């Protein structure tokens, strides 16, 4: 349900970065989304369709890089993907596992029309 506000934040961050470069047309927004967050990619895509309207990202595509949850045991070093049945205790040692990835929630980059493309468009 909070994907709408997450989508709005993504658009705001993208717009702020585009404005800094005097760009008015964002074409791509690339984000990294961890598996161990509370954000559902499909719901976020849907929310983005609403959030981008009337903004500099009106024509933008949202690219989501889904980052799987991976954990590692500090003692035995075993690395696993525990998502189907989350257990953050090492099955061998019983120690708490550290999370290597899965908590990402980041705007990586945006792609904007380059200077020459913009000139073409104006011409």
């Amino acid at each position, binding site marked *: 349900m909070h994907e709408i506000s997450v989508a709005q*934040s993504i658009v705001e*961050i993208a717009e702020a970065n585009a404005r800094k470069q005097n760009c008015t047309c964002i074409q791509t927004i690339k984000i990294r989304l961890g598996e*161990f967050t*509370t954000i559902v990619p499909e719901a976020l895509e849907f929310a983005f369709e609403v959030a981008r309207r009337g903004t500099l990202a009106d024509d933008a595509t949202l690219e989501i890089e889904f980052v799987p949850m991976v954990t590692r045991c500090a003692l035995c070093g075993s690395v696993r993907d525990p998502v189907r*049945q*989350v257990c953050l205790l090492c099955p061998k040692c019983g120690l708490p596992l550290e999370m290597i990835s899965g908590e990402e*929630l*980041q705007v990586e980059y*945006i792609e904007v*029309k380059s200077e020459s493309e913009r000139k073409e468009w104006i011409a």
Partner: protein
Amino acid sequence: MDRIAVKTNILKDNQQAAAENRRLFEQGGTVVINLMSAPGAGKTTLLEATLRNMRDRDRVAVIEGDLQTDLDAERIRALGVRSHQITTGNVCHLDARMIARAIAVFPIQELDLLIIENVGNLICPASYGLGEDFRVVIASATEGAEKPKKYPVMFNKADVVLLNKADLAALPSGVDLAELERNVREVNPKAVIIALSCRTGEGLKLWIDWLQEAIASRKTASVGA
């Protein structure tokens, strides 16, 4: 096409607002709890039981978060404890900016403890820090032992997990508390886990002691600083 590197956390605005809240809380020497659970797990009842035990000894106040109504804030005021209601409309969680607005009109100076009761929801509030010192999550014995596994992010981020309605675990339809505790442990090996019942009072002392310990450490820290 030009690529502009951004590398910004999507929830950075909330994180910044939470950091500012935290600064104000630390300045005031106030311990702040973000209390979360599914609807009906017993957040407000736990608060009432907690406040009855603490109100004569400690300076406590409550911020209530709900989609609609100020019924919960009324319940707290009925105990003679200051409370402030945030109605979120249809927003499914409290965020740090809502707390910032609340503490601008609801002074939190000279408090030992501020408890923020979040909107009943085990998903969204997990992602929105409020500037709290501790996250406390309730799983009640009527909800089934699998809850922590089904909502792992929420339970993973908890500092304390309270297994509420422990008295009902003894009923034929009740959950196995040991299994519930094991499931909490599997998604969060580090959490403090306390089984309690607000009806019988079982375990309540452990929880109050934990809170008082947190208040005492904060005071020691402020004296040290």
